[in-house]
């Protein structure tokens, strides 16, 4: 099933995240990731979800979200005209100099940042499309991942397309 990205504006109020996730649970929508952040001075937050869903399920999901009183606007983002980004923090552990060199090269190739480094561990920050992060993780898996954390996808449409009113 295709990966879809859906963004929506919600009232920035207590309990809204609960109601949104409660809706997903109740209607049986399986969400891969969700990101939330308050928007400046508007009283809104923007949520972005990614979901594997066929057309009918996606349609239902959008309609059900749209019906929620706390949801101001909801939109499936056009996959061809959207920039999607996710951040990954990953801690690699190795004392092997060759492996460390490989790690630094992979991080560099992904325009990653090294946030912390000592004789054993490297913490890197990588930002990119979720598929790029998957690919990066594939490269460094052999080196030794001890811990990682992904933020989930956030996204915005190109050009004149936009979510707000």
């Amino acid at each position, binding site marked *: 099933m295709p990966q879809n990205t859906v963004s929506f504006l*919600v*009232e920035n109020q207590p*309990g809204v995240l*609960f*109601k949104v996730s*409660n809706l997903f649970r*109740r209607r049986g929508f399986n969400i891969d990731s969700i990101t939330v952040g308050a928007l400046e001075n508007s009283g809104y937050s923007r949520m972005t979800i990614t979901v594997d869903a066929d057309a*009918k399920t996606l*349609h*239902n999901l959008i*309609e*059900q979200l*749209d*019906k*929620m*009183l*706390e*949801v*101001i606007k909801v939109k499936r983002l056009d996959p061809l005209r959207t920039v999607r980004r996710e951040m990954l923090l990953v801690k690699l552990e190795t004392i092997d100099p060759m492996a460390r060199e490989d790690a630094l090269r992979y991080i560099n190739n992904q325009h990653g940042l090294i946030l912390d480094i000592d004789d054993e561990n490297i913490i890197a920050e990588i930002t990119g499309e979720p598929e790029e992060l998957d690919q990066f993780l594939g490269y460094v898996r052999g080196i030794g991942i001890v811990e990682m954390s992904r933020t989930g996808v956030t996204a915005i449409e190109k050009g004149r397309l936009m979510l707000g009113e």
Partner: protein
Amino acid sequence: MTEMIGAKAFVRSLERAGVETIFGISGGAVIPICDELLDSDMRFILARHEQGAAHMADGYARVLNKVGACLATSGPGASNLVTGLATAQIDSSPVAAFTGQVNRDVIGSDGFQECDIIGVSASVTKYNVQVRAPEEIPHAVKTAFHIANTGRKGAVLVDIPKDCTTLRGDIEFPEKVEFRGYRLNPEPDPHELDWAAKILAEAERPLIMAGGGVIASGASHELVELSELLLAPTATSLMGKGAFPNDHPLSLGLCGMHGTMEANMMVPKSDVLLVVGARFSDRTTGKIADFAPNTKIIHVDIDRSEIDKNVEAMTKVVGDAKLALQGLTERVKRLRTWEPITEWRDRITEFKCVYDAENEKNGPYLRAPAVLKALRDELPRDAIAATEVGQNQMWAALHFDAYLPRTFHTSGGLGTMGWGFPAAIGAKAAKPGVPVVDIAGDGSFGMTENNLATAVEEELPVIVVVLNNNVLGMVAQWQRLFYDKRYSAVKLKGNPDFVKLAEAYGAEGVRVETMKDFRAAVRRGIKADVPTVIDVPIDPEENVMPMVPPGMGLNDTLMEAD
């Protein structure tokens, strides 16, 4: 701005919302509110269980087309409301629940009688909110009534911490509330109407199915007009019963699992099916793939999210049923240049089955279909009926005709046993001048019969007709038909003597074994000042027929059990 305590602000807010009657039970967290109610003209009807209070508010709301209000204390009072809210919400009935809550500084600490009712009720309400200060009360109440009573109506809940009711605040009553994410779209799109009207006007075998939305929008008149214009046989869902008069020549009655033969046979044969204010529940469609496979479906609903949710429509009209039906009728009149085809309509008689309802007796027992026909006969056309759930409900849907909208009420969506009796009490409070009956099964009545105390003390003389088979009849029917007669968990050997039960509460009780006695009991019940319970022993083996076996399509409707 006026200074007053939160409880007063709350009661004033209810008055401003037009509340005349509120159903509920008191308790620690709502004592300040109950105290203020003493100084108000509002009528407080004390239920005997909060579930009953919510159902009363629901019955009241359905009859009057006005928000029904109920009140409960924190903790168990609030959680007891949940079934009532779920029932109202799924049937789009405007019910507003107000719950006490522990003091703000105790919230989250598992305090005495603390229940997270906001979390618990989130899935069964259209909207809920917890008040965080006395000043927020008027706005919260106003918002709740607005949301309950607009668009697709539903249940709402406002949770009020006790200290917010005892503390003073500078109170302002808003004239208007706004909700940025709440968009009402009653006006149908003219293009959608054009397109739908074109399909309708060209139909050779048009059929209309009306749901509860037609009643909610007050569109019965418009429905009859369009149906007569198209000569379209018209069926209803369970929730739509009353939207189209059962004695109209184009009436097909109920469609679905226990639909009439004519409705279930004709729906799949139609070439265009106009569905208005119905949501294609699985009980209405039977097996979806066989529902109307070669039919062009036009779906009219005020709730956009219902379109294509269960059944894919060929085209849609999003908006209020009344406006949509008016728009369609106007356009069809313009588009249509030929006479409608009468052969299609005439097939109604071909499929119509005689239900041998005239057969009054089955051995020593009165037969339920005949009892309900006699009941209908004794009641005026505008009498109000509520049903319980099970065989009684389906017999009522099939054999108890409804002629007017808002005269037939049932828990269609949730199927809540025990709903009918308190809903009937609420209905009687709404329309004291009209006879109100609850068509009940003994199992269902047992669930909320304690509300007899309320009906007696509030002088709400409803009539309860207990179709008494001493069994959870509908479940037993399934076990008889699909589980080899292995009856499990259905026998009600410990049923009380319903006559004595009624008398114990100070109500009238009577057991009848002949139709003559039954009719006489109904006539006495209509005139009585106290509630009347009529115990009608019926055969525990009797099935509700017709029936679509579970998992099958409307075409597979069975007339006989074997």
